[in-house]
């Protein structure tokens, strides 16, 4: 047994123990209190941290799938070392998000039957859920087709186009779920689906960087030459560009929100002074951008891993602020809610975030152990 394999088994066992412990705690609380264990209320914050976590993992998944598909289509041999890992991580991330969603829904099992049989074509959520089903299947088949070490990218082009289209559709549909609520100006915007697509691409890049380093226990010397070439070649520039585009979307929305008088946009005035938002912008996005732009740091493994970790956190904050922020203005609640609503996730909700992380990591570790991700050559 190699050193790497031992580490992978260790990671898998640790993640599984974590899933067991956190899963038990969550089930105990939800079994006893039901959704009263959440801090969401009928006053307005209907979708709390569990939905934030679900959407965060979903968008990361589609970002990873888009990267895998684009790498197959345009990446030639240069991007080959990250394709299989990106595809597997896309599944692992999605699984973590879906587990949390299932625990958030009032009737999760009913949803599995009621959504496919409803033919609710008007609902963005219907299209999103149905497409996710096809997307998972397409990803599984893609991974199966890449099981041989000498898989041929040209033969997978059609498959990659399908996955790219599905991933973009799901991401855009997730954007429509929020962006179409015209009476919630904090959410409503025609560019939200596009912003979501860029955001998920950024998430995909950050996850690829971080989890590749994690696979080699942050030992850059242990990484294959192909991975090193990619990480020190085209990828830092792409990563920086993705951070910049996301930053642009966030800042554009912020400026619009601060200058706009429409009721609902005043959430921005509260948000821009919050430490969380400042941390997102300055530590989560600007610092990684600088790290990936400076010639002295962009190829340094510590800088890449750090930038990836910071961006992963910034995107979670971004998702949190967007989803919660859009619900902070109460809808006709009078003196029941005379001010902007306040929301702080409960312990159970935080545990759900932890559960999603652990589930994704367990599945990822399983893939690292059994699929030899990114080590074909």
């Amino acid at each position, binding site marked *: 047994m190699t050193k790497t394999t031992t580490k992978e088994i260790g990671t898998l066992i640790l993640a599984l123990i974590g899933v067991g412990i956190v899963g038990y705690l969550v089930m105990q609380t939800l079994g006893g209190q039901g959704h009263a264990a959440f801090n969401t209320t*009928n006053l*307005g914050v209907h*979708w709390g941290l569990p939905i934030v976590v679900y959407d965060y993992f979903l968008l990361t998944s589609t970002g990873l799938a888009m990267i895998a598909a684009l790498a197959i289509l345009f990446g030639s041999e240069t991007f080959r070392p990250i394709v299989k890992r990106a595809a597997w991580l896309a599944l692992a991330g999605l699984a973590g998000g879906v587990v949390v969603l299932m625990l958030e829904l009032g009737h*999760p099992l009913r949803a599995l039957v009621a*959504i496919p049989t409803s033919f609710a074509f008007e609902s963005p959520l219907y299209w999103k859920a149905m497409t996710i089903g096809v997307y998972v299947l397409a990803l599984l088949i893609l991974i199966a087709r890449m099981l041989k070490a000498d898989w041929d990218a040209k033969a997978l082009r059609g498959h990659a186009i399908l996955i790219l289209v599905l991933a973009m559709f799901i991401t855009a549909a997730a954007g429509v779920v929020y962006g179409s609520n015209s009476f919630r100006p904090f959410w409503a915007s025609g560019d939200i689906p596009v912003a979501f697509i860029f955001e998920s691409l950024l998430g995909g890049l950050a996850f690829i960087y971080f989890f590749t380093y994690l696979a080699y226990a942050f030992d850059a010397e242990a990484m294959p030459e192909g991975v090193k070439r990619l990480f020190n070649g085209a990828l830092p520039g792409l990563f920086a560009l993705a951070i910049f585009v996301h930053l642009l979307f966030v800042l554009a929305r912020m400026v619009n929100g601060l200058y706009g008088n429409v*009721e609902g946009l005043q959430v921005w005035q509260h948000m821009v002074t919050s430490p969380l938002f400042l941390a997102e912008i300055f530590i989560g996005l600007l610092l990684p951008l600088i790290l990936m732009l400076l010639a002295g740091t962009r190829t340094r493994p510590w800088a890449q891993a750090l930038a990836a970790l910071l961006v992963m956190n910034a995107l979670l904050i971004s998702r949190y602020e967007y989803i919660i922020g859009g619900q902070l203005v109460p809808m006709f*609640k*009078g003196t029941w809610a005379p001010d902007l609503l306040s929301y702080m996730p409960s312990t159970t909700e935080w545990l759900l975030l932890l559960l999603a992380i652990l589930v994704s990591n367990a599945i990822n570790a399983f893939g690292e152990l059994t699929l030899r991700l990114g080590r074909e050559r």
Partner: protein
Amino acid sequence: MAKWGMVIDLDKCTGCQACTTACTMENNRLPGENWQDVLFYTEGTYPNVSMKWFPRPCMHCEHPSCVSVCPTKATYKDPNGGFVLVDWNKCIGCKYCQVACPYGVRFYMDERAVIQPDIRTVFPSNNDRLWDPPYKGPQDDPSRGIGIQPHGVVSKCTFCYHKVSKAPAGAVDLDEDIRELKEHVPACVRVCPPKARFFGDLDHPDSYVNKLIADKRGVRLKDETGNKPQVYYLSGGAAAAVPALRSMTDSDKS
């Protein structure tokens, strides 16, 4: 078929909450589950402060966004009468309808109780319903969101479907002063002491609700959303006006 609608005269409404109480009792709602509510607002800053109120049932919109977004078609528009109802047998509790409703009239009551003691634990249910109140209305129709809801579903005002849908064929205005119709009048309309509420067929050109809307220039709440509520408000006098804003006071918007 009729397209039932409500007219609320804000010049007459005294904010007494009789409608809220009647609705809660008629439909066995939980504390905080105000299918019908009279909302209070304070406006202005000291010393120029005024208190206003605004009655708010479900709008039973012509083009309801809650219906459009529902991924299981659990929320639907009944073509016979224009009621917007929830089929609790199909609802998955995703709460998208709550998020997509511009009027805040939907409730997910599995959440933390708004007051203590939690009445759900005082009168616990043993048949998967949220609670088992000592008095229950005779109606129980989960496919229309009538009765005590099961766990994990969203509930809302039904326009008292169980009463209105049994009105004699051809009835145009359901007025509590018409003896043979009073049992078919929605609870909030029937109990309104100053008679600020009217209920009738919006599709009938001679209905009293249409006359009121025309004579007193009835308006719909947040009409710009395109939801086209079937609840109209009359105002323009010295009393409360339809609030342009949703809920917060002026001072909160600075």
